């Protein structure tokens, strides 16, 4: 049974519809990443789940019980959750008081509070900071106070809204470490909103893509990144090669797609005549100087049009009558002497091509 279940949820701010009939179920202990661009409605969804806001339409269930729209029960349920907001908003009090407040509000005893606060501060690496005013801390430290403040409550559900936005790489790594530690040790159910896809991929068991208020696709990282449901998701998850084509043959689940006179083979069930997009991840394309014999079904003669390097990788744009982007290591790029005008063969497997329907509007 789901710990949290959201059914037919819609929410508007005035005229603007922020969430559009959204359904989502989370089981206990699950780590769920909510990815989507800024303004997609991630924060609003988290606020509604934390019962900070009442949705315009729809119901929410917590542990099987329907949550009322008002009344004391909301506070009781909210106390089983904790929310780390995007901007670390610490109270103008000592670090100790910041972390202790949630426990005091729950009527915990002084001794047990002191013990738990000390333990958590040690865990987030802020021991010795007890008496510092939390407002004098750096952004990364403040975010750790905010995280400690939530963790000390040992919540059943932890909501994280862009927990590492605006933080430096070192602080980001620390926070990510803590999150995965807690997910592993305490089996806390987590929902994490992020626009950093690698973070979602790294920390979450399941990912949901929120685009313009709609939960367009949920699934494993592999599903989302390799098998996006439509063009919008493909675009958002950084699928660089989205090529228009038409299916001209279907041979027991292996289709041939005509792309400006080239035939690409892919695995799909769409019928002949269907207008589709062929999606190929840049890292799935191999570049070689001669046509090599291999099991890969697709191989095209192409001309390099642009090479750009970032980090250890080179992004190579090639023209094989349609445009393709390939990602190779810098070393390979140097060995093959990849530069503008160089003629190469681009190869990719039929299973590396993901076919999605092209909606004609």
């Amino acid at each position: 049974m789901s710990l949290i279940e959201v059914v037919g949820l819609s929410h508007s701010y005035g005229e603007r519809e922020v969430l559009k009939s959204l359904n989502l179920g989370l089981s206990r202990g699950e780590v769920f990443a909510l990815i989507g661009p800024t303004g997609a409605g991630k924060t609003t969804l988290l606020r509604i789940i934390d019962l900070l806001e009442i949705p315009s339409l729809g119901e929410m269930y917590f542990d099987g019980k329907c949550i009322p729209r008002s009344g004391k029960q909301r506070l009781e349920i909210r106390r089983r959750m904790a929310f780390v907001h995007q901007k670390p908003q610490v109270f103008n009090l000592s670090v100790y008081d910041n972390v202790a407040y949630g426990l005091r509000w729950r009527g915990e005893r002084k001794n047990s509070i002191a013990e738990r606060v000390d333990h958590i501060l040690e865990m987030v690496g802020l021991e010795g900071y007890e008496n510092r005013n939390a407002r004098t801390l750096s952004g990364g430290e403040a975010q750790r106070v905010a995280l400690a403040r939530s963790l000390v409550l040992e919540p059943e559900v932890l909501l994280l809204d862009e927990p590492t936005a605006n933080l430096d790489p070192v602080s980001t790594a620390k926070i990510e470490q803590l999150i995965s530690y807690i997910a592993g040790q305490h089996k806390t159910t987590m929902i994490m909103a992020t626009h950093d896809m690698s973070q979602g991929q790294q920390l979450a068991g399941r990912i949901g893509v929120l685009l313009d208020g709609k939960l367009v696709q949920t699934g494993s990282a592999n599903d989302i990144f390799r098998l996006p449901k439509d063009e919008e998701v493909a675009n958002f998850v950084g699928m660089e090669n989205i090529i228009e084509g038409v299916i001209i043959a279907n041979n027991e689940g292996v289709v041939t797609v005509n792309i400006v006179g080239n035939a690409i083979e892919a695995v799909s069930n769409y019928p002949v005549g269907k207008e589709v997009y062929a999606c190929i991840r840049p890292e799935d394309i191999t570049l070689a100087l001669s046509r090599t014999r291999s099991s890969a079904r697709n191989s095209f003669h192409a001309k390099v049009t642009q090479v750009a390097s970032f980090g250890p990788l080179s992004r190579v744009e090639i023209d094989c009558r349609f445009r393709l982007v390939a990602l190779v290591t810098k070393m390979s790029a140097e060995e093959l002497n990849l530069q503008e005008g160089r003629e190469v063969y681009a190869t990719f497997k039929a299973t590396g091509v993901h076919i999605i329907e092209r909606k004609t509007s």
Partner: protein
Amino acid sequence: MTEIWHGLIKAVELIISLDPGIMEIAGRSLRISGTSCLLASLISLPLGSLIYFHQFRGKRAVINIIQTLFSVPTVVIGLFVFVLFSRAGPLGETGMLFTPAVMVVGQMILITPILLGLAISALSGVGKEVVDAATSLGASGFQLTLLILREARYAVLAAVIMGFGRAISEVGCAMMIGGNIRGFTRVMTTAIALETSKGELELSMALGIILLFLALIINIALNRLQQR
């Protein structure tokens, strides 16, 4: 000119020698204004929180009225309280007119709008993010109010000090409803008005210096708080 100079020296002498007459008047001023400030705070801080935390029709108008009352003339309040407590007035039977108690009432009416208005703006300064953070951490409505008051403590204290400053420096209301009775309702401001008209400049100046000194202390305290 020498006369003024002479008076000033005499005034300083009176203060340094802790002249009993002066001390008695200054002490009464502090007591009356302190009491009115305390009572006004006890009313204004909860009421201010109530207004801030609740959404109701005409909230904006209420805040506008409160802010308008910041600058109500003291003599108008004097008149209002006088009518209220005069023999024929609705509270005439209490016999409180021309007593320190009625002066406290007058000053409370004078500074309550200031405390209320500044308390509301102090709370508004706390920010929605803090409210959200506290609510998420499981604060009940009452616990949230206490936390926010604590967050706004410096601004709230500044409001109280402002109120006290206004109370101790006003003269119109104290004169009209206190009556400036020697040894009973005479406070620093009313004493200055009287002694000056009698030509007793050194006494007026001594009291004036004490008032200025109090204003200075209040200012320093406010500055310190605003720097937090």
